[in-house]
Structure formats: structure tokens, C-alpha cells
């Protein structure tokens, strides 16, 4: 059975990577494959998701650039026909922003204080334990 594959990225210049690395490390512990690509532009992030054939994209925002970057990523995923990819957003995300981004197509938001297991559980439930389980 193939592993769940997750691409993790920081957007733009957002420099705090600890949260993203903690999640990445935990997902690996939970048996997933994680590709961490660091600070990137929306186009590069979506390109990696497609090239890696990932089922999940994890985005981390602490600086507050998510309202500029995330909508652009969602549109690009749609243009690439990859809207089935689950987009998770973590970090410091105000409630209003969460609502708006969930409306636009983010699958789930995990703010500060979220448990690592809760994130991993959510992914397993949403994606299943392999690519065959994906509902296209």
C-alpha cells in the first residue's frame, strides 16, 4: 500500500518554520511521506504538488501572508485539475480568515495549539491510508 504523500511549504517570506517542521516530523512518524520545500511562491508550490503527485498540501502561515497567498494557490490547483488535493493551513490564522479560506476551498485549518495527532488523524480520515482511498 502506497504511503500518503504530503507536500509542506512556507509561503513567500514567512520565516518561522518550527510549526511546519514539527508537523512534518510527526506525519513521518505516523507513516506518511513528507516533502518539505521551504519558502516558495504559489506557482512553485502547486508545481511540486503535481510533480510529486501528493494528496495533501500543508501550508504554514505565521507572518500573516495567507490571505494573499492561499487563494492564489487554490486557484492554481483548480487550473491544474488538482482540486482533489486536500489543502491544510496551519499557524496563526484569525477566525475570520479561517472562515473565508475554508469557503474558498481550504480543507481544514489547524491553528496554534492544535495537537499533532489531530492533524495526522484528520489526514488519515480524509485521504485514507493510500491513494486508492481518494474520492475524486
Amino acid at each position, binding site marked *: 500500500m502506497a504511503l500518503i504523500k504530503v507536500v509542506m511549504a512556507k509561503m513567500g*517570506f*514567512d520565516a*518561522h518554520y518550527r510549526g511546519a*517542521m514539527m508537523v512534518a516530523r510527526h506525519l513521518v512518524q505516523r507513516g506518511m511521506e513528507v516533502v518539505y520545500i521551504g519558502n516558495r511562491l504559489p506557482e512553485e508550490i502547486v508545481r511540486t504538488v503535481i510533480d510529486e503527485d501528493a494528496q495533501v498540501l500543508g501550508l504554514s502561515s505565521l507572518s*500573516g*501572508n495567507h490571505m*494573499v497567498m492561499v487563494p492564489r494557490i487554490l486557484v492554481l490547483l483548480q487550473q491544474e485539475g488538482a482540486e482533489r488535493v486536500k489543502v491544510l493551513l496551519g499557524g496563526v490564522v484569525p477566525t475570520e480568515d479561517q472562515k473565508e479560506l475554508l469557503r474558498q476551498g481550504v480543507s481544514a485549518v489547524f491553528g496554534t495549539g492544535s495537537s499533532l495527532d*489531530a492533524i495526522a488523524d484528520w489526514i488519515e480520515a480524509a485521504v485514507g491510508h493510500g491513494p486508492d482511498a481518494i474520492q475524486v
Partner: protein
Amino acid sequence: MSSQTENALGGSLSQDYRTTSGIPVKAFYTPADVAGLDAVQDLGLPGQPPYTRGVHRDMYRGRLWTIRQLAGFGTPEETNGRFRMLLDQGATGINCVFDFVTNRGFSSDHPLAEGDVGQGGVAIDCLDDMRRLFDGIPIEDVSVSLVLSNPVGAGAIFAAFLAMAQERGIPWDKLRGTLQNDFLMETVVLTAPNILEPAFSLKLSVDVVEFCTEHLPQWNPISFAGYNYREAGADAVQEAALVIAHAVAVAEEMVRRGHPIDSFAPRLSSFFTADNDLFEEVAKYRAARRVYHRLFQERFKPQDPRSSRLRFHVQTSGSALTAQQPLNNVTRAAYHALAAVLGGAQSLHVSAYDEALCLPSEAAALTALRTQQVLVHETGVTRTADPLAGSYYVEQLTNEVEQRILAYLKQMDDLGGLVRAVESGWVHRELMGTSYDRELATTSGERKVVGVNCFTDDVPLEIELFRFPSALEQQRATLERLRAERDKGQTEAALERLRQAVLADENTMPHLVAAVRAGASVGECCDVFRALHGGWHQPLL
């Protein structure tokens, strides 16, 4: 109610209790626990070696800590407004934070920067921005901390500050303040596109130290950012050990460049967090001062007593704050601030209660300032120096933290020193490991966080979030104007001289001041560094 009480006690008294960094704690302490402690050699008096008890004899009676609340968001004008508000309300120093784009020395119109301009700090692109940032602020009277974390950009932005001061007729030797200028921030703590090689990043930071030693005798040219090492995952022992290892690395480089230790060491400064574990934090400050003093005495043999005194600013922990039940953060930050003061801090920022949700609103920033004022004027903690001295527990914990700091320093020495430890990825792995263990302890509920994994609310409390317009359009316009108005030949010549200085391994600071005056943007100056010494990959995974 009864189930919540049981939760709060967290288990039986026979349980193995430890501090946050893993030091075992007994149910009580007796004189036997500190039997080996020599009150003269190991403690001394406040203001006397080994400075365990603080760097000043009369401590806060003689000089209160500087109330230095962090501020910075959006455009230079917006941040200038926040500075004025804080000074009007009783702050005694400026503490300016810059956005990531500025901190990393990129121009605001860089393609990656679109969502980050003015986020998390003020955007500064050139000399003209610096003029507006400090418009009407008496920088000849108020000490100014510029939180320029990364050596790649610290020099260029500081150069703009110096050029601005000169235009206002303020001699550089009258300026008081601090730069962060910490190569670990650039290579370990934070991430960015196109990172400088660790050894070159350290070189740039020492350029500033060298320049300030010659021209700005009242300026602290570097602040070893233990606070940020901690936020990136370190525990209290690792935080203090990395600060001290960093200070040693800078001092060694300055000595190698031919500067006597006493010409610069008195102005090296440090920056610590104040986190949840109150007594361990106090022990950390006390132990760090003792280790720092002894190590500097042993390695550099200074004559000036100030050369081996560890002075530090404290910022109360950001990562200990929670998005859930945000008003609890007022209480947390007050305990953190108390730890800093009991530990003898020289300067303090209290974090705002909304920081796990957004940049501090004016109301939250003001509450943080008031927290300091309550501490100063209502609690009586300023009356006497080092009030916890002689506590069996605190003295034993100070000894234990000291031993662990020394062991950690030895490990780094064995790896070939701090720069090698960074290059090899050892420091990254250490911080990530500690951080991950702590996250797991939170996830499992072993580590209790009120409002997060216990005493949670069904209906979340909403607070009003701070919003401000994007600074991107204004910064783009500023850059366009700069490029249109400057003498292109002069700018290019100045940048070429900067490039030659890097190639010849000269001090870059005079060339940065010249380049900024000649109309170079911060981004253009830093591109020179990146072109020659960029492209380093952080060994993260």
C-alpha cells in the same frame, strides 16, 4: 469540579517531577543541597564577580530596567505613530521590529514579498523610509533597539539609520541602542530564500561590532538572541549555552582581527526569553551570568570588569501564549515578566495577549506596557537586588543549570565550535528534537496548557483583531521614486565598491553607509552579499 481538580494536580506526590528542561526537582530542599556553594566565589555581591546576583550593586534602585515594548507594522509612518503612542504612555526605549522582507534584506517589490510587506514588522527599503520611521523621535535621548535579526540585512538597514542620524546633525557617538545582528537567526532559527553561508553571516555581524567599536561607543552592536533560539525549540539550558557560545565566537573573531577584548566586550549584549517555568528561568539568568563571567575571564583575560558581565534584554515568551482563551495570556505574560525581573534583566518587553492571533492591537500593546508598570510601581519587586538568592531550591537549580550549560558548551567545543555545529546541522537537530518532544508532551496531555488541553471552553472567546492596510503599494512607490531620482552611476559605483570590499575581506560597514547614501536600496546592498556568499541550504530534515 472534582475531576478538574484532579486534573490540575496532575498525579501523585511520588511522581518524578522535572523542570521544563528536564532537571529533577525534589519535594523540598535543605542546606545540604547547597553545601558546596561558596557565598563569595560562587555568588559574590550584586554587581561583583561572578555576577550571579546581577550586574549592578544597587540593581533597580539605581536604574530601573528599560521598558521597551516591541513595535513595528505596515509603513514607516504607521510604526512611527505606534512609537509615539508608547513613548507618550511611559515606555522608556524604542524597540523596532521589521518585516521579514526587510530583515532578510530584500526589496519590498521582490516577487516573493507580496504577502509579507509590512506584516510582522515595518517595511524599510531605503534611507528615505528611515527618515519617516524616526520622524520626531528624539533618538539622541531615547535608546533605540533595532530588531534587525539577520546579518545579511542588519548592516544595510543600520547604515540607513546612521545616515539619517547624521542628516539630523546627531553625532554617532551620542547614539544609544542595540542591533540584534545574530547569525544564528539567519542560519538556524528562521528560514528564507537564499541564505548566506554561516561563516559569512558571522563575518558580517562582526563587521558591525568592529565598526561600532570604532564609531559608536554607546551602541550594542549585537544581541545574542537566546529568546529566538528558545522559540525555535531550545530549552532553557540550550538557550543559555547557545548565547554564551555565540558570544565566545564573536569575541574570538574580534580578537583575531586585532581588537583588545576590553575595546568591545563591554558592549556585547544578550537577549533571553522568560517562559513558564518561573524558578528555572530565574536560575537560567543567574547561571548564565556566572558561566559567562568565568568563561570570558578564562579565555580572554579582560582587565575591564564590564567585559565579562552578561547584560540582557528579556522578552516574555511568545510561544507560551495561546490562541484559545487569549485573555489568559495577560496572566501568563505577567508571570514571565516577574521571572525576568527576579532574574535581574536590564530591559524588558512584555508580549501582548493577542499575539497568538494577530499582530498586537493598540489595546493589547497598552495592556502589556501596563503589566510592566504594575510590576514596577505596585509589587515592590524592585526594592532589593536578587531577592531569591539563598533559596536552597533556586541556588541548587542555578548550580544544576550551570553544570548543564557547561556540558553543552563542551559538546559544541568538541564539534569544532559554534559555526561548525551550525554547518553540520547539529544545532538544527538539537532544537528540533527538543521542540518535538515538547509538542508530543502537549499532544499527549502530559504537559498541561490551560485552555488548550485542559479547562477548555465550548464557546471560544472572540477578541477584536488588529488589522491594517498592506504597505506594499507605498513601498513599491518609494522604490520607484528612489530609482528615478538617484544618480545611477553613483549608486552602481558604490555597490561595486561594496562588492570589492567583500572580495577583499574588508569591513563592509563603511561601504554600506556610502551605498545607502548614494541611493542604493537595502535589497540591492544585500544582493551583493547573496551573489558572493548565498545559496546555503539549511540542514533541516
